[in-house]
C-alpha cells in the first residue's frame, strides 16, 4: 500500500521551496530576499520538525526562481538551507547555499563609529569562517562583526 507523507505546507506547481531554514531566521530570510514586497503567492511554516536542525522553517514561493547571488545572501542566517526548484510539482534541482566571499548592502556594521553608520554609504564586508560561525570584516572600518551580532538591513 502506498503511503504519502502529509505536507504541513501545501505543495506548489512551479517555483522554489526553501527548506532547512533555522526556525528563528524565517523572517530574516523573507526580509533578505525581499519576499514581503513581492506579488507572488507564498506560504511558509515554522517550528516544523527537522532531523538536521531540530526545528526548522520552510518557505514555498510560486512562480519565483532566484539568481545565485540572491540565494547566497541568505547563507548569513541560514547556512544549511536547500532550495528545491519545482517544475510541475516535481523537484527538478536542489541547490545549496554558499557563503559568499563578499556581502554588499545587506548587513549593518556593528561599529557605531564606522563611517557607514554616519554617512549614506552602502556597507561592504568580506567574510571568513571561524569555529564560532561566519565573521564579516567591514571594508571601511576594518572591524569584524560576528554571526551573533548580525543586523540585517531591509532589502528594499
Amino acid at each position, binding site marked *: 500500500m502506498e503511503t504519502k507523507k502529509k505536507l504541513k505546507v501545501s505543495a506548489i506547481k512551479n517555483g522554489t521551496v526553501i527548506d532547512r531554514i533555522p526556525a528563528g531566521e524565517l523572517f530574516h530570510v523573507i526580509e533578505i530576499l525581499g519576499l514581503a514586497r513581492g506579488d507572488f503567492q507564498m506560504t511558509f511554516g515554522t517550528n516544523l520538525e527537522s532531523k538536521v536542525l531540530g526545528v526548522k522553517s520552510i518557505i514555498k514561493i510560486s512562480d519565483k526562481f532566484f539568481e545565485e547571488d540572491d540565494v547566497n545572501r541568505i547563507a548569513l542566517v541560514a547556512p544549511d538551507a536547500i532550495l528545491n526548484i519545482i517544475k510541475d510539482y516535481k523537484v527538478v534541482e536542489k541547490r545549496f547555499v554558499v557563503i559568499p566571499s563578499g556581502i554588499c548592502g545587506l548587513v549593518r556594521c556593528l561599529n557605531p563609529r564606522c563611517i557607514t553608520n554616519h*554617512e549614506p554609504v552602502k556597507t561592504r564586508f568580506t567574510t571568513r569562517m571561524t569555529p564560532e560561525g561566519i565573521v564579516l570584516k*567591514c571594508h*571601511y572600518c576594518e572591524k569584524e562583526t560576528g554571526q551573533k551580532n548580525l543586523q540585517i538591513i531591509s532589502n528594499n
Partner: protein
Amino acid sequence: MKSLISINDFNKEEMLQVLDLALEFEANPDQPLFTDKIIACIFFEPSTRTRLSFEAAANRLGARIIGFSSLNATSVTKGESLKDTLMMVSNYADMIVMRHPLDGAARYASEIAGCPVINAGDGANQHPTQTLLDMYSIRKTQESLDNLSITIVGDLKYGRTVHSLLQAMSHFNPRFRFVSCPELAIPREYIDFLDSRNILYSHHSELEGQLEDTDILYMTRIQQERFQDPMEYERVKNLMSLDVSMLKNTKPNLRILHPLPRVNEISTNVDERPEAYYFEQARNGVYTRMGIITYLMNQM
C-alpha cells in the same frame, strides 16, 4: 592611481620602496620634485605631529599646500556631508591628506575623490603613515627588518599603531612579546592573523623581565578613560611603565619607540639613554611622508 588607506594597501615590496625613498630624502631633504602639485591637508580633528610633518614633507618636496586644521572655518559646520566636502577638495588638489574622527572615513574618501588619498588617521582604525615611519625607524636602528624580537607594551586593544605594526612586520619574520593587562589585551582577530602566518608571540602581564633579548621596545600610552576603576588604572600603569633601572642586561642594539604623545609610561630619566629613540622617530616622520607622497605621485 593609488591611495594609502590601510597598511595592507602596500605589499612588502612597496613598503620597502617607500623606506628606500625616505632614506634618500633623509640624506638630501630639499628636493622640489612637485612644484606643479597642490596637496590638500584636511584635518577634521586636531593633530600636531602628523599634520606638521605632512606639511613639512610637502614643503620640502616643493608642493603647495591648501587645507584646514579645524572645522570652524569650513562648510562642515553648515552641515555639509563628507562626500560633498571631498568632491570639492578633489577639484582643487592633486592629492589629499586626510584625518577624520570616524573609522573607515579614509576608505570612503578614496572612493569619492578623484585623486590619491593618504590616510592620516581615521578614528581608531588605521594610521598607516605612522606604521611606515615606525618601520623606517626600526630598519634604521637595527639595519634590517628581518628576524627581530619586538616587545609591545600598553594598550594593545585600542592602539591602532600596534595593530598596523603587527600587520606590517608580519612580512619580516618577527617574534612578538605582548605586555598588557587583560582589559587591554591584543584582540583575538590579530592573534588569529599571527597564527595564520606562523609568527611566534607570547603574552606577559608586566614589563619587568621582558627586555633581555628584545631588539625593539614599542611603548604605547594607556588611556585612563579605558578603566572604570581608577585604582586598577594606577596598578596597570605601574606594571607597564619603563624606568631607567629596567635597562640593565639588555642587548646593545635595543631601541625604544613610542608613537607619542607620551604621558608617564616612559620615565623622563630614560630620555638621555642611547636606547631612547622616540624623538628621532618623530623626526623620521617627515622623511617617511616625503617617501609616501613621492611613491603615490609617481603612481598617478
